[in-house]
Structure formats: structure tokens, C-alpha cells
């Protein structure tokens, strides 16, 4: 009976998700096999042949693999380190580090990349000049326009994704597992590597895979830092395919996108295979759980200082560069002249611009309403993925990744080809649906990781006591899922607030978003206004993150 109901729920969700994510992808698939430039045309394989027989494609593929794997690894390791210190130890300033860990998610990626170019370009990067003066070097020690520079910046930008997936899992860790390890004589490090990390495998893998998929689709960093250094990856290869000529052949771009899609779907199945025995990762069962705080003792202050320096250099410094750029009249290296010519002109321009203000309103609507609806849908989808675990749930998981796996510049066109056939075209609802459909994995990943840790005994006990399915979800599951829900909501909300790929294609006068305004300033080369708007976006996002955390803490069940 229960199985039958679960199957019904699964199929209903598959229908909803298929409607949301399959439509643009189907358009792109048709476009990739069609002659001509629009969705429908005579069947052809020419686009695939042209892409996959291009000798430069395979060099690009090599660069892409290096870029993607190392960026995702960097984000995941960093997130693990931060999540461990923040959730499991007595390090001071936890709340501050928690917010700092998700700050890169709030910065428009193009701005973050430009800030790093100002800091570490080999000609006159601020940090390079400083190091050259201090150590009397003849050449700049760092070149941000390199694959290493790209990996560092992309890794930092994707840090919040990994952090927001790993942190809730770390927060729900059962003390008894680690205590058992210690009883058998293992130290802190051995317990960490033999118990803590293996139990967290689903969350770590989920974080790594999501980062891989995001890096594959990333465009800002490869464009701003890769192109000047002549390092091309798939996203910039697609851009080159699309922009050479006056008519963009998006069908050909979709043909390139198919390899990314296949890679992403394969990764999901690898993930499902590696976490197939989900009961191994349960840390919250009917026995109750109490996360333990590890005493750092003498390492407490040095680790705090290291984290502080890390946060300052890697995350806060680029934001300070943005703040500085918003006050100087044009792009200037810091100097007496630059500081004396600072003014508020860019801020006044932005704050007096009616389009910027209306785009702020639209973005806030899309971010709050979209993230809330997306989170609600993610709860049900995650439940089916983790608890039902049949072939249909595998389909559901793959569907949730469909739109997400495509590079932004391509999926935006897929949505345009789809929405133009509906009455929703050029309305804010098209943006809302497109956002949810594309970024659903941001809601689903943290929640599946959190779901995996909850033993089914808890739900069964509730059912035995006479509670309905919905009551069980509301009274038992959701309170235990709060860290995952908060993470999912934050990921979606901050993403929606700065979303560009879909917005630039689907927004029209009256439905402009903040990111579209940012792009407009960027096209005009108005970096000062762009930075001012970027700072406003970061400020609002920080407020949203703090509010979400406070709301989450309010509803979190007592664990002691």
C-alpha cells in the first residue's frame, strides 16, 4: 500500500519535473539535429560532425577536465575544512566564518573574476606589485590568467555550494560513532579519517559532483581569466562557436552541450552507485543524536588566525576591491591620486536609475518566491530519491540535473525556444519557472544528503503512532531536515538573486533583473556602477543568508 503511494508520488514528481526540465532540453536536442538556425528543420548530423571532428575540440576537452576536476576538488576540500572547523570544533567566530563561507555565492561571478584580475594580473596586479616590492622581485610571482588562476577563482566561487552541502551533514553527526572509535584508542585525526569522513561520503560526493557540474557550465571565470591567457575550456569553446558570425548557431552549441550533459548524468549514476547502501550513512536514528564539539586546545587560536587570514585574502579582499572600484572614477591602481579622487558618483547613478531599482524589485521577488517554491519541490523530490530508491527515482534524479548540466548560454536559448510557444513568454513567470527548473539541484543536493542521515525508523515510529504521511513529514522529517532546507534555500535564493544566463535571454523591459543590469554596465565598460550594484547585491544577499539562518535556528529541534 505504502509502496503504491510512493510510486504514485514518484510518477507525479517525474511528470512535474519532466515538464519543467525536459522541455528546453528537448528543444535543444531537436535544434542540434536540425538544419538551419532555429529549433525545427530537416534532420542533419552535420552539427555533431563539425564539432566532434574539430581537432581543437579535444585539446579544449583536456583543459576542461583539468579545470573542472581541480576546481571541484579545491572547493570540496576547502569546504570540508571549513565545515569541520565551524560545526565540530570550538573555534571562535563561527557565525562570521559561516557567513564568509557562502559570500562568494552572492557575488556576480564576472565581478569576482575581474577583482582577481585587478589583484593578480602579471602587469600591475595589486598583490603582485606588493610582493614584488617586498621581496624585490623582477617579475610578478603570480599570473591569474592561467589554468591555475582559473582553478583558484572557480574553486572559491564554488566553495559555498560544497560548504552548504557538507555543513548540514557535519552538523547532524552522531557522537556515538566517534566515541566508539575513541574507546578503541583512535586519536582525533584517525577518527576523522576512519570514521567521520567515510560516514560523510554521500555529502562529500554530492558536493564534489555538484561542483564538477557547475564548473563544466561556468563561463565567467574561463571568459575573464582563461581567454586572456588563451586557455579555452568547453564553455568558452561554445561561446566561440556561438559568437563567430552574425547568426549564432545554437544547435551546434547544443551539440557541444550534449557531451557535458552525458558527463553530468553519468556522474549522477556514479554517485548513486557509490551511495547505494544508504543505511551505512545514517547518523540520526531513533536512539537520538548529539553532535559533539571537539576541543582544539592549543590549536584553537592558530587555526582561528589561519582561517581569518584565509577569509581575508581569498574572499574579503576581492570584495574590498569592488568597494574601492565603486568609489574611484575609473579603473585605477590604488594611489594617492586614486584615493583623493574618490566620490559617490557611481552610487548616485545606480540609486537614481529607475531600471536598476525595478530590477532590484524583480530579483527580490524571484529570489524569495522562487527559492521557497524550489525548496518545497526539492523536499518531495529528495524524499523520493533517498527513501524510495527505485529505477523511477533514478530517473527523477537525472531529470533534476538536465537543465542544470547545460552551459548557461545554451540552456537560456532552450528556454526561449520553449517559452516562445507558450503564453508565458516575456513574463516574470517564465523566469521563475526557468530558474526553478534549472537550479533544482541546489535544493535537492543538500536535502538528499540530510535525508540520507535520517533513519527510516523515525518515520515508521510516527506512522505506528497513527500519524499520516504528511504529519510525519511535517512533525518528524522536516524539523530534522532544517539544516538541509536552510542550505538549499540559501543556495537557491543567492543563485536566483544573481542569475544571468536565463535572465539575459528571457527578460524584457519591466522584467529586468539585477544581473541583466550588471551585464548592461559590463557591456558599456562601466565598472564603477557595476561594482556599486554588485556591493548592493552582496549586502542584500548577506541579509537573506542571516535571516534564513535565524529562521532555521528558530525551527531547529533541540538536540541536547
Amino acid at each position, binding site marked *: 500500500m505504502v509502496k503504491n503511494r510512493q510510486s504514485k508520488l514518484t510518477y507525479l514528481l517525474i511528470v512535474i519535473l519532466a515538464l519543467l526540465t525536459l522541455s528546453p532540453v528537448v528543444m535543444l536536442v531537436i535544434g542540434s539535429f536540425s538544419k538551419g*538556425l532555429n529549433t525545427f528543420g530537416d534532420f542533419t548530423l552535420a552539427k555533431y560532425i563539425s564539432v566532434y571532428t574539430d581537432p581543437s575540440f579535444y585539446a579544449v576537452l583536456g583543459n576542461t577536465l583539468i579545470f573542472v576536476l581541480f576546481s571541484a576538488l579545491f572547493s570540496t576540500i576547502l569546504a570540508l575544512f571549513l565545515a569541520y572547523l565551524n560545526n565540530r570544533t570550538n573555534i571562535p567566530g563561527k557565525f562570521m566564518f559561516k557567513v564568509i563561507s557562502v559570500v562568494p555565492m552572492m557575488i556576480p561571478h564576472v565581478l569576482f573574476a575581474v577583482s582577481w584580475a585587478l589583484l593578480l594580473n602579471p602587469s600591475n*596586479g595589486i598583490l603582485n606589485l606588493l610582493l614584488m616590492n617586498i621581496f624585490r622581485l623582477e617579475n610578478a610571482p603570480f599570473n591569474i590568467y592561467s589554468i591555475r588562476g582559473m582553478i583558484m577563482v572557480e574553486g572559491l566561487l564554488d566553495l559555498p555550494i560544497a560548504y552548504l552541502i557538507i555543513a548540514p551533514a557535519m552538523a547532524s553527526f552522531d557522537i556515538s560513532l566517534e566515541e566508539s572509535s575513541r574507546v578503541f584508542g583512535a586519536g582525533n585525526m584517525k577518527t576523522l579519517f576512519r570514521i567521520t569522513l567515510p560516514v560523510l561520503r554521500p555529502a562529500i560526493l554530492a558536493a564534489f559532483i555538484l561542483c564538477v557540474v557547475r564548473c563544466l557550465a561556468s563561463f565567467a571565470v574561463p571568459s575573464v581569466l582563461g581567454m586572456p591567457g588563451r586557455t579555452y575550456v568547453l564553455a568558452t569553446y561554445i561561446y566561440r562557436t556561438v559568437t*563567430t558570425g552574425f547568426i549564432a548557431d545554437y544547435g551546434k552549441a547544443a551539440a557541444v552541450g550534449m557531451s557535458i550533459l552525458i558527463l553530468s548524468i553519468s556522474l549522477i549514476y556514479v554517485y548513486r552507485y557509490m551511495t547505494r547502501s544508504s543505511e551505512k550513512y545514517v547518523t540520526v536514528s531513533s536512539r537520538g543524536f548529539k553532535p559533539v564539539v571537539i576541543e582544539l586546545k592549543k590549536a584553537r587560536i592558530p587555526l582561528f588566525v589561519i582561517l581569518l587570514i584565509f577569509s581575508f585574502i581569498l574572499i574579503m579582499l576581492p570584495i574590498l576591491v569592488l568597494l574601492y572600484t565603486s568609489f574611484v572614477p575609473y579603473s585605477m*591602481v590604488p594611489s594617492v591620486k586614486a584615493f583623493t579622487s574618490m566620490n559617490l558618483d557611481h552610487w548616485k547613478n545606480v540609486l537614481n536609475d529607475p531600471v536598476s531599482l525595478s530590477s532590484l524589485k524583480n530579483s527580490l521577488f524571484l529570489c524569495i518566491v522562487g527559492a521557497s517554491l524550489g525548496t518545497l519541490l526539492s523536499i518531495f523530490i529528495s524524499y523520493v530519491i533517498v527513501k524510495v530508491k527505485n529505477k523511477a527515482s533514478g530517473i527523477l534524479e537525472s531529470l533534476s540535473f538536465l537543465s542544470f548540466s547545460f552551459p548557461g548560454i545554451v540552456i537560456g536559448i532552450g528556454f526561449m525556444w520553449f517559452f516562445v510557444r*507558450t*503564453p508565458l513568454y516575456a513574463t516574470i513567470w517564465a523566469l521563475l519557472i526557468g530558474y526553478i527548473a534549472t537550479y533544482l539541484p541546489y535544493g535537492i543536493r543538500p536535502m538528499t544528503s540530510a535525508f540520507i542521515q535520517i533513519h527510516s525508523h523515525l518515520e515508521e515510529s510516527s506512522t505506528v503512532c497513527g500519524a499520516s*504521511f504528511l504529519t510525519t513529514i511535517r512533525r518528524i522529517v522536516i524539523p530534522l531536515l532544517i539544516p538541509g532546507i536552510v542550505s538549499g534555500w540559501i543556495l537557491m535564493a543567492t543563485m536566483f538573486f544573481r542569475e544571468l544566463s536565463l535572465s539575459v535571454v528571457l527578460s524584457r523591459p519591466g522584467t529586468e533583473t539585477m544581473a541583466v543590469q550588471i551585464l548592461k554596465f559590463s557591456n558599456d*565598460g562601466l565598472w564603477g556602477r557595476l561594482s556599486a550594484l554588485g556591493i548592493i547585491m552582496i549586502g542584500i544577499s548577506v541579509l537573506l543568508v542571516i535571516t534564513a539562518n535565524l529562521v532555521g535556528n528558530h525551527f531547529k529541534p533541540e538536540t541536547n
Partner: protein
Amino acid sequence: MKKTIRVIGIVTSFLIMGSMLFAAGAQEKAPQKESKVMEEKVALYASITAIEPILAAFQKDTGILAENTRLSTSNFATTVLTEFQAGKLAADVVQAPLPVMEILKQYGVIKDYFSPAAQSYAEWTRNNGGIYQFGIEYVALIYNTELVKAADVPKRYEDLTLPKWKNKIVMANPGNHATTISWLVGLKENNVFGSDAKWMEFLTGLAANNPMFVASFGPTPAPIESGEKLIGISMPKYIITKAPAPLAWAQVEQPLLGSPRAIGITASAPHPNAAEAFMEYWLSDKAMSLLANDVGEYVLTPGVFPPIDGIDKAKVIPIRDLSDEELLKWGAEFEKIFKL
């Protein structure tokens, strides 16, 4: 479980119905608006940036609201054709580089229109049905006035190949940026260097100086202003839009080249009267003066120049439209030369 499925079903239906109702509401309102909006509003799709002063002046002078959707050149034809073929093109007026406008004309997007205002322009600007050329996306060598000494400023394009500019140049990617490809080919076709061999020498010399490549012209001025690079192949209009940045253009002996910018009314314009009013306004001396003075654009209205030192004396030539096949071919060629 049944209750859950019902709840999900209700929420989804609510969302879909809400969206449909909203859209239907918008559609219902459209015919009412159409009769009024003919005089109240005009929708423009444009690739040119920073045109807000003209839109504001148009609204002030005519009372018609001008709404602009900015589309990048690479997205322009795809977006307009997708909307047009689905019967959803909202644009009354479209503005894009001439080759894009010609493609749209082939698909029947542009209507034939006689513009009285365009009669003061040179004849070659208005020989294409409803397409009117009004400006040239002119390209020049832009340098940092604080870091480049007057004696070092290039006097010819070939000066960019001198070793002193090694690692000091920024330009849009010659492998895929259509305007840069057209410009480089334009230098050859207009025989700017005297022979094809000299043109090739220029290219190889420029490549040897290891220029930094960016996606388009938009990001070219920032590294020059900040001193990261000293000179770039960019657009003089940034001297106006980025003032007081220390930028100037190298007044070379050779002509300046650029792609023509054009404008036209769509065949399915929802607001045809307002569209005509806008076209006439756009092509008027007043609007073109605004475009030149506030945006730094090179316009084709006789006697109107942007307030940039020496531009009024420069010879500015429109370059030939390259087909997409030619752009691909030359892009691949430049990829080899510049080792992209």
C-alpha cells in the same frame, strides 16, 4: 500519502493556472493597449549600448514611452527570428549591425519604409529597402595618456608591431569577435597597408607582441585605464563614456574603419505609428547629436561629430559586410596567426 499527492497536485495546478491567468490577463489587455499604445509606447530591440539619453529625449519631446531591450550582436538574429516566427515579436523597431539587419530583411522581419529624415544622409546609407544606416562602429587605437608619452603614440597601425608594445596591447579575440575579424579583413580589403604582404606583416607583428585577448570591445578600456595594458584596439567612444579616464585615440595617418550600424521598422510592429515616429526621431539631427555628444558614437548625419579631439578630421570608412562563412574562415585563419 494520498493527501501529499493531492497537495502537490493542487500546488502545481495553482502555479500553472496562476501563470496562465497572468499571461491571459496580459493578452487580454494587449488589444486595449494596442489602440492606445500606438501613440503611447514604442518597443526597441537594440545592440547599441548607452542610448538612454535618446530614449529620454524622445519621450520628453513626443510623449511616447520608448522601451529598449538590449540584445548582444551574437544573440540578436536568433532572438528576433525565434520571436518573429512564433508570432511573438514585440519589437517595433530593431537596431543592429548592418549584416544582422540584412539577414532579418531576408526573413521578412523588416518592412519597407521611406524615411523623410534619412534624406539628408548620404545616398549609400539608404539604399536598402527599410534599412537605414546611421553610424559606424568605428575602431581605433586607444591608449593611456598618462603612461604613453606623446612621442610614442602610434602614427600608423604598423607601429603596433614595434617591440616596445610587447605584452602591452589589449584587443578583442580575433578568432571569434565578428567586428574585430571584419576590421582586420577591412584593413586588407581597403588596402590600408599598400599590399597584402604588408597586411600580413602587420598581423604577424601584432601577434608577436602577444596581445591580451578579451571577449569583445566592452572589456578593452578597463585594462588600459588601470595601466594593466598601455594601448588597445578598441572604440574611441569610450573616451566619452569613460571620462575622466586618461584615454585618447592614436590619430593615425590611415583611415579609421568600422561596421555600419543600421535601424529599421519591423513588418509586424505592434505600434506602427509610434515606430515611424521613433525612426524619424532617431534619424534626426537632434538624436544623432545626442548619440555623438553623450555616447561618443560616429554618426552619419552630415556635420555631426563626437566631441573627441581630431575625429572631425578623421577619414572613417564603412567596411564590407562579411558573410558568416567568411567570418568563420577568417576567424580560423586569425586563430592560426595569433596562435589561439
